[in-house]
């Protein structure tokens, strides 16, 4: 990755942009090819993806989110975010630059904006995050009944817990100290003790799926650009 003076905050801002499908920052995934800020305040960011045919809906979300994140960095006056080497790069780059929205950028080929897609994947991220938080509790002997009764405030602090709370808050699900640890990611309702084993099975499977997908994407990116991975 090439950087120039002032790009530290740029990279920090980009670090808040996630691949909505993989639920990881685009910076650690290696999707930021370059980021620079000129003394005049021109920010230039290039993004790259694992394949030429990566899903354009997710690609659009990442380019648009990167644009928004970079625009808020101190000293940035003009923002340019360019997706490289992608079959829909022109439509995405021009659509984001014009603040046109997804549907207008793909006229005739898309009928919905992407909010519901983003929510679907946030719910998956909540389930996967639930596994991450609960696995140590299960390993140390917590019973289904104990987990069903537990609140977020009673879980020992960890980065995984912070992340889970963040994702739940984004979805409008209860995320405070008094909120139940286990909730249905669609309705927000607490999970009853009898439903805990299946809920945890689903959570683990969702995390496995996400991890495997991320693994394939990383492998493809490494093959495509010959880059070493950040772990």
């Amino acid at each position, binding site marked *: 990755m090439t950087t120039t003076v002032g790009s530290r905050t740029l990279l920090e801002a980009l670090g808040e942009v996630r691949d909505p*499908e993989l639920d990881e920052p685009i910076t650690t995934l290696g999707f930021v090819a370059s980021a620079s800020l000129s003394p005049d305040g021109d920010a230039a960011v290039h993004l790259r993806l*694992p*394949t*030429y*045919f990566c*899903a*354009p*809906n997710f690609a659009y979300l990442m380019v648009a989110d990167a644009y928004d994140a970079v625009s808020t960095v101190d000293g940035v006056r003009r923002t340019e975010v360019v997706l490289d080497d992608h*079959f*829909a790069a022109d439509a995405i780059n021009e659509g984001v630059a014009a603040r046109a929205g*997804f*549907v207008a950028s*793909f006229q*005739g*080929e*898309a*009928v*919905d904006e*992407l909010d519901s*897609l983003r929510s*679907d994947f946030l719910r*998956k991220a909540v*389930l996967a995050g639930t596994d991450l938080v609960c696995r140590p509790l*299960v390993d140390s002997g917590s019973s289904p009944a104990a987990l069903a009764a537990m609140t977020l405030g009673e879980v020992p602090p960890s980065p995984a817990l912070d992340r889970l709370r963040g994702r739940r808050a984004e979805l409008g699900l209860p995320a405070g100290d008094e909120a139940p640890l286990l909730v249905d990611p669609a309705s927000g309702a607490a999970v009853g003790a*009898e*439903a805990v*084993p*299946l809920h*945890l*099975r*689903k959570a*683990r*499977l*969702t995390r*496995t*799926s*996400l*991890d*495997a*997908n991320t*693994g*394939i994407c990383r*492998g*493809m990116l*490494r*093959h*495509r650009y010959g880059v070493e991975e950040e772990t």
Partner: protein
Amino acid sequence: MYEKDGEKYFVVDSHMHYWQAGPETWVPGAEHYAKGWIECFHAYQGLAPAETHWPIEKFMSYTEDDLMKDVFEDGYVDVAVFQPTYLTEWYRDGFNTTERNAALGEKHPGKFIANTRWDPREGEDGLKKLAENVERYGSKGVKLYTAEWREGSRGWKLTDPGAYRYLEACRDLGIVNIHVHKGPTIWPLDKDAFDVSDVDHAATDFPELNFIVEHVGLPRIEDFCFMATQEPNVYAGLSVVIGGLMHARPRFFAKVMGELLFWVGEDKMTFGSDYGIWEPKWQIEGFVDWDYPSDEFSDYPRVTTATKKKILGLNAAKLYGIEVPAECQLPADAGTPAARDDSVGVSAESPAATLA
């Protein structure tokens, strides 16, 4: 057949291709799509062991000799199932059509099963063509791409009335295996093209058909598993799972296999090499040698020699009515499916235990 430690494995490669994608086949005006597509496939090959990588030139245009050597001579495969992919908007003669596959199959009797395809948006003409293909090539299976964008339509669902007409036609024509591509795709742009709920409904309404979900819905394995666990005629097609993860991401491979064995079960998982993306040889050798890498995986169902024999060939042989030599069959008492209740973490009283 593959033999290791005195055990004989009958191998059915239930998902492979014979494509042509060199520059001379690219449709004028669509060259960037044709080139991008084959380069994308080629990148997947990068997830295999380095010594099995091909230069892009060979990857675009591998020959009959390459295929026969890689799949049968070196690759241990007994019977291979062609799954067609047309993409005629990009490739002049199609990427790999029923016709091209069958022409090769006819030269090597007994080696190949030539599946065909359909698309409900082709209406009456498509139904006629389907009947012709079954008559001419003896197809017992089809490969379907529900997410394919076509003339303004953004994909289709197995539950569409038009699709039900085709499923009824399959039943009447003697087609028994419906391979549904639920995996990486391009169009439609704004839908989640990996949604498998349509398979759920169709599998219930057509209990006499088998639905093999290729690539297990990757990247949405969880949606596929939740569905497959409730449908006795839904199978997990392992193409991409073994090829894409076993070498490149062994820990994730172990987890994905563990989950599939738990939710879907060893009787409903089928091997597919996805040749020419990956050669079958290293996949089969590696899978026969494979086990969970550590105790961390102890609450997943166990993997036995019988598990591997089923996945590598016996399950698909049953789906396609392929005769298996006696020396490769399982003893009568080895056929017990992986028991869901045996898995730690789910008691016999839990909802998961009663899902099936």
